[in-house]
């Protein structure tokens, strides 16, 4: 795909803004990595070799019996017993003294007998967002070599929760922003294009809609339907789509009197085509200017709902919930600092990127 000269100029301008460009690179790397969160922080190994066979617990359910254990439930790979079973090739002695046996198995010989040595390939962080960390100490516990940023008040690893929480926040805001922009642009386009009575009625509906207390509606809906991610997405779109209507409507009102729109009408081009082919590109610049506020605003919405306890179900890795825990556990500063820096870095990067995008689309701005 080749870019039009206009877009080439925009891309050049964006590249010239070094802060925005580097923010984009850093954010892409962070988000790219978080997409593979399961390979970064998980309580299951990526790959297991047991008695010459290969297993991928990250994707598939294996009962403990598969590795010579007793239970038909899923193998708990972080237990020493299971690790011992895998590495020794399923020796029964593992249930008595796994730690010594693992030490012993390193050279491949136990008590003079050669064993079928196996191994496990672990992610760098051996906890998922919902893994309970065993071990001494009260929750939340301070950072250690195992839990780099400590644990939260239910003894879950903070690093793992940040990685998953970051992914969830970005996902949430992307989905909500795209969908609500889509609805908002269509609504604004229709109002601006047809104007007159359509516009008048629509505007009044918008005013009524905007006056609705969204927080109460969310609380009531969650009480009736139960909390879930997709319900939250839907509700946020329901109250978020109006953000773009104003600017898109204004652009369409302006554009509908342009001479090239009139020329298209004289050619007999249909309304839909005129809106899509001639008028929408004009509205895109205004939309892009508003988009940063929508994207960061949605992250803020999710965070504040979680913080208030009306957000995602508690089983989800939520950064807002971590902020709430930080408030309730001031004796555990690692929670507060982690939440603060995660939000600060994520939002700053996004703001820098969109600032660059907006400047790149500004035709009057000259770059030297």
């Amino acid at each position, binding site marked *: 795909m080749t870019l039009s000269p206009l877009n080439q100029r925009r891309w050049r301008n964006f590249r010239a803004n070094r802060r925005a460009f580097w923010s984009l690179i850093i954010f892409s790397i962070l988000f790219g990595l978080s997409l593979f969160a399961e390979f970064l922080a998980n309580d299951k190994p990526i790959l297991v070799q047991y008695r010459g066979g290969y297993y991928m617990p990250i994707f598939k359910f294996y009962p403990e019996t598969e590795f010579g254990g007793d239970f038909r439930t899923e193998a708990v790979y972080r237990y020493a017993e299971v690790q011992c079973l895998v590495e020794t090739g399923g020796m029964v002695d593992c249930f008595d003294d796994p730690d010594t046996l693992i030490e012993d198995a390193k050279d491949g010989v136990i008590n003079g007998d050669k064993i079928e040595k196996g191994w496990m390939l672990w992610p760098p962080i051996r906890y998922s967002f919902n893994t309970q960390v065993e071990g001494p100490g009260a929750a939340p516990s301070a950072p250690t070599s195992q839990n780099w940023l400590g644990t939260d008040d239910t003894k879950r690893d903070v690093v793992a929760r940040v990685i998953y929480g970051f992914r969830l926040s970005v996902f949430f805001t992307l989905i909500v922003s795209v969908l609500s922009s889509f609805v908002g642009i269509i609504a604004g386009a229709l109002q601006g294009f047809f104007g007159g009575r359509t516009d008048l009625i629509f505007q009044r509906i918008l005013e009524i809609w905007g006056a609705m207390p969204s927080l109460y509606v969310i609380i009531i809906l969650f009480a009736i339907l139960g909390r879930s991610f997709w319900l939250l997405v839907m509700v946020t779109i329901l109250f978020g789509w109006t953000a773009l209507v104003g600017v898109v409507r204004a652009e369409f009102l302006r554009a509908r009197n342009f001479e090239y729109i*009139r020329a*298209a009408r004289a*050619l*007999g081009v249909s309304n839909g085509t005129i809106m899509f082919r001639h008028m929408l590109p004009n509205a895109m610049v205004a939309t892009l200017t508003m988009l940063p506020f929508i994207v960061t605003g949605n992250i803020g919405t999710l965070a504040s709902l979680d913080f208030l306890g009306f957000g995602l179900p508690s089983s989800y890795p939520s950064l807002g919930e971590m902020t709430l825990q930080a408030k309730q556990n001031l004796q555990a500063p690692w929670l507060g600092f982690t939440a603060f820096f995660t939000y600060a870095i994520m939002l700053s990067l996004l703001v820098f990127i969109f600032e660059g995008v907006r400047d790149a689309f500004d035709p009057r701005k*000259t770059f030297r």
Partner: protein
Amino acid sequence: MSLLRYTDLRVGFRQDGSVVEAVTGVSFSVEKGETVALVGESGSGKSVTALSSVNLLPDTAEITGSITYQGQELVGASEKELRKLRGNDISFIFQEPMTSLNPLHTLEKQLSEVLLIHHGMTGTAARVRVIELLEQVGIHDPESRLKDYPHQLSGGQRQRVMIAMALANDPELLIADEPTTALDVTIQAQILELLRELKDRLGMSMLFITHDLNIVRKIADRVCVMKDGEIVETGPTALIFDNPQHPYTQMLLAAAATGRPDPVPEDAKVVAETEKLRIWFPVQRGFLRKTVGYVKAVNAASFSVREGETVGIVGESGSGKTTLALAMMRLISSQGPVVVLGQDIQGWSNRQLRPLRADMQIVFQDPFGSLSPRMTVAQIIAEGLSVHKVEGYASSEEAVIDIMREVGLDPETRHRYPHEFSGGQRQRIAIARAMILRPRLLVLDEPTSALDMTVQVQIVELLRKLQVTHKLAYLFISHDLRVVRALSHKVMVMKRGDVVEAGDADVIFDAPKEAYTRALVAAAFDLKVEEGAGL
């Protein structure tokens, strides 16, 4: 010592790291009490030259060389020094009277602001001076108009107020940047007369920027002809006009739409006609949207246009000529018959009209506004093909190439965007977009008004050629009587929605019956103000 002297002025604009030179070494001077005209086509750098004097250019401009005002160097002078000169010793009048005045301030406020800044004048003293100034520029009963806002004035009156603002501090030098381009011909004649009279009375010098040589001949003592950022010829006005040396000056002087249209055969078929067409916009008030009155845009207009014939519609702005054309295209609502190709299409729905749209096409005035900036030329021209079928071409690509050749564009450039083309080329693109559907009726809404004289001539020739080849019927709208004369068989003169006079072009131009037509013709061809025309 000269009042204003330019020595080897160069102005460049930075963009994307490179510098585009707009003015390349200009030297001339304006003496006391003299009017110097800078003439050239758009893009020749004449406005940039004028604006650089007190540095009113954007930040991206780089100025080198020297400009002196009464011996004082202005290039590189501090903002404070320049501000003292601006409006005080050197005043400006700009092209667009609509946007040069602040719409939220009354006349008194706008004018007394100038007096306050440069003289610290307030209260009664300022008010007396404001009234005096308005009187000077020919505003009737100025006292009663002090509390008026710009929108309550006509275009000509606004330009007079602009001149009053420029004169408020008794400037030594008045720089007028195309001050009459946006005005109607009759108003233009009045403003020129006013400027000349004021200059003589107040003993000012004037630097007059224009693209219209007729104005130069009327007003200037000396002429500098600019082309591509350089002055190619300079000298006293009479000398330049009688004996131009440089080929470019000769070309400019020769550029005028001349000739007459080819005669129409007697048995030519009627393409479009209307009888007593009325376009009234209802004015609705109150909660129940009761119609309390009408804005009468067009009252009872009748005409018919045949194959190969041009009907010219002339009139000043606000006379309803564009409205009439849009109603004929059924782009706005009207009352009365609209007959195209024998069918009365009044009241047809958009869907019914769509097949007929190919037969009636329109070309607009502004070649910059009428092309979507985000589409390539090929996409723009081929747009109509997505709605209508045209016989004889295998692909739309082929049709586009063919029509581009016919209107005089290089088909190789079809993948470029409109901003890469000049005004004249853009107008050709707009014509190609209309012509690709092989229409029978072409409405031309001021197609030459935004173009330079030399380009106007080319477009007129192209239109004439197309008319003969395709037996086109033209509805030609313009306020430029010269172009109308060169193209039209019949002429209709409109004033405030009424048809004042209609008939054969030769009769109307050579022996106008109505006073209004006479005034128009006098203003357009001789830049004279006809007395008692009721303007």
